[in-house]
């Protein structure tokens, strides 16, 4: 594919669903918004966890922190500058905490990532209590149609980013960390720097997503913004979709967003039970996810044909 063709493809992916914002119903836009939100979140998770194998169960920490930074500067700066600033602040914060956190490896990192999200949530709760704020409304946010387009741009941006990293030298370095970190370091891969870059990159996107999400929900509450269910949903989406590459999670996201739409409002317990059961099933029977299962079977089919 030539570069200009790729560019046209990307433009089409933005313009076609983007033009829907003109006439689609509020409800449809809401579903689209959620879909794009999780696509962006899942892609950003893959940059760190999918490629390096540093599985994060606390990805919501970036989402919530971004939302928090955004409500703190709400009204002080123009809206879209605020969104960008949230991403920058959280990305910068990720570089600072990433340095000690990424020294912890394997299963310890997984538990640490979860603990970190809970720690930040509790610190935000304490800070809010100290400032005598129980909930923060966000008044005068842009209409849903605009937020929908912003989320679409983020989703496409995150997908392109993951796609590009996966095929870059940077991505090859990240995957060498997953396969064998000691060996990678020995042959001269700058392991520490690559991990830190991936950590920061995988934090910027969810922070901006969090900022936009807060405009949609209209209110900031630490319990919602740092809800562990969000982390859990992201992990399940990627495990179901599978693969460390960009196309995988699209399948998982689409499937779970539909499920969420049908069940979350009325039967949250059933939704969570199905989510948990799916995670168990895929870990046990299809650790590569739908995508790798499909591609394995398709390539086998092709070989047979030849």
């Amino acid at each position: 594919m030539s570069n200009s063709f790729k560019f046209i493809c990307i433009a089409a992916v933005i313009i076609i669903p983007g033009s829907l914002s003109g006439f689609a119903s509020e409800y449809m836009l809401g579903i689209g918004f959620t879909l794009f939100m999780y696509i962006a979140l899942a892609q950003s998770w893959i940059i760190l966890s999918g490629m390096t194998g540093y599985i994060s169960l606390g990805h919501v920490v970036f989402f919530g922190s971004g939302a928090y930074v955004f409500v703190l500067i709400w009204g002080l700066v123009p809206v879209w500058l605020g969104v960008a600033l949230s991403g920058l602040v959280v990305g910068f914060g990720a570089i600072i905490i990433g340095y000690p956190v990424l020294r912890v490896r394997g299963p310890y990192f997984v538990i640490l990532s979860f603990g970190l999200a809970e720690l930040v949530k509790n610190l935000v709760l304490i800070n809010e209590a100290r400032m005598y704020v129980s909930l923060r409304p966000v008044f005068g946010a842009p209409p849903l149609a605009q937020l929908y387009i912003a989320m679409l741009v983020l989703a496409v941006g995150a997908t392109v980013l993951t796609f590009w990293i996966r095929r870059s030298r940077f991505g090859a370095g990240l995957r060498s960390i997953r396969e064998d970190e000691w060996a990678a370091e020995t042959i001269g891969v700058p392991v520490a720097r690559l991990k830190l870059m991936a950590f920061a990159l995988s934090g910027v996107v969810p922070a901006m997503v969090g900022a936009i999400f807060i405009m949609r929900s209209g209110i900031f509450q630490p319990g919602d913004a740092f809800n562990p269910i969000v982390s859990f949903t992201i992990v399940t989406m990627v495990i179901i979709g599978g693969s460390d590459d960009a196309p995988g999670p699209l399948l998982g996201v689409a499937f779970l967003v539909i499920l969420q739409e049908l069940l979350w409002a009325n039967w949250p317990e059933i939704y969570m039970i199905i989510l948990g059961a799916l995670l168990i099933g895929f870990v046990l029977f299809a650790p590569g996810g739908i995508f790798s299962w499909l591609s394995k079977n398709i390539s086998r089919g092709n070989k047979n044909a030849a």
Partner: protein
Amino acid sequence: MDILLSPQLLAAALITGVLYALISLGLNLIYGTMRLLNVAHGDLVMIGAYVAFMAFSLFNVGPLISMFAAAIICGGLGWLAYRSVLQNLLANSEILARLEENSLLLFFGISVVVQNLVTLFFTADRQGYEYLSAIVEIADVRLTGARLAVLVVGSVISIVAVLYLRFSLFGLAMNALIQNRDASAVVGINVDRVQMYSLVIGFGITGLAGALISVLEPITPVMGFPYTMSAFVVIILGGLGNLWGGFLAGLLLGFLEIFGVAVTGPEWRSVLVYGIFIGILIFRPQGLLGHGRIAR
């Protein structure tokens, strides 16, 4: 500073510490022998608590008796989990290569399913019951009878368990497994059986602790999670697979938590536990008592 010397606080710290020691002992057995990261561990506490609650409200049986039922039920769940899934998991080389990550995701899924099933059956409301609520006074320390009972029973059971696992033949076999799985198979230890009993005992002890906890705090479907976190803090503090170290670390965490909260305030409780946890992981991942090498 007076507050730090109060015997009242000391008693509270001992109670919390003993419970942490008991719960993390269970987690330690499971991690030590099989390298399974059981993040659903706290949910066994929750199940034990619901067993005690049901026993009390349906049959008027107190937790000091129903704790054995809780232990048997949770132990049975351990047997079921081992025979249905974990046995195959531990035999599958593809999964074994990344066993810790995979088991973590697996138990995470199990935890979510269990919590939500319990919510469906019992609702998310807080439950509780009155048991031995009269105040007992011993040497200036005022405790409810229930808390005193928890302290005594918890101490006895955790000490007996640690001694048994240290000196009995089965305990020795289990220690061998913790040290080196392949080598213990070579010297004739029935690895499969020891693994299964570790899981049954580990789950059972935790369920029993849950029954004790049911008299101390409100019972909810999500009550287990803080205990999962605390148990991981404890076994990392004490050194993974080190039972005696874990016992001491359990007491230590109880003291840190109770005295820390007394100094700062209740809203800092979670921050303290997670803060200690993150600090330990970053600065001493081999545990306080551990040596230079990280156990893998």
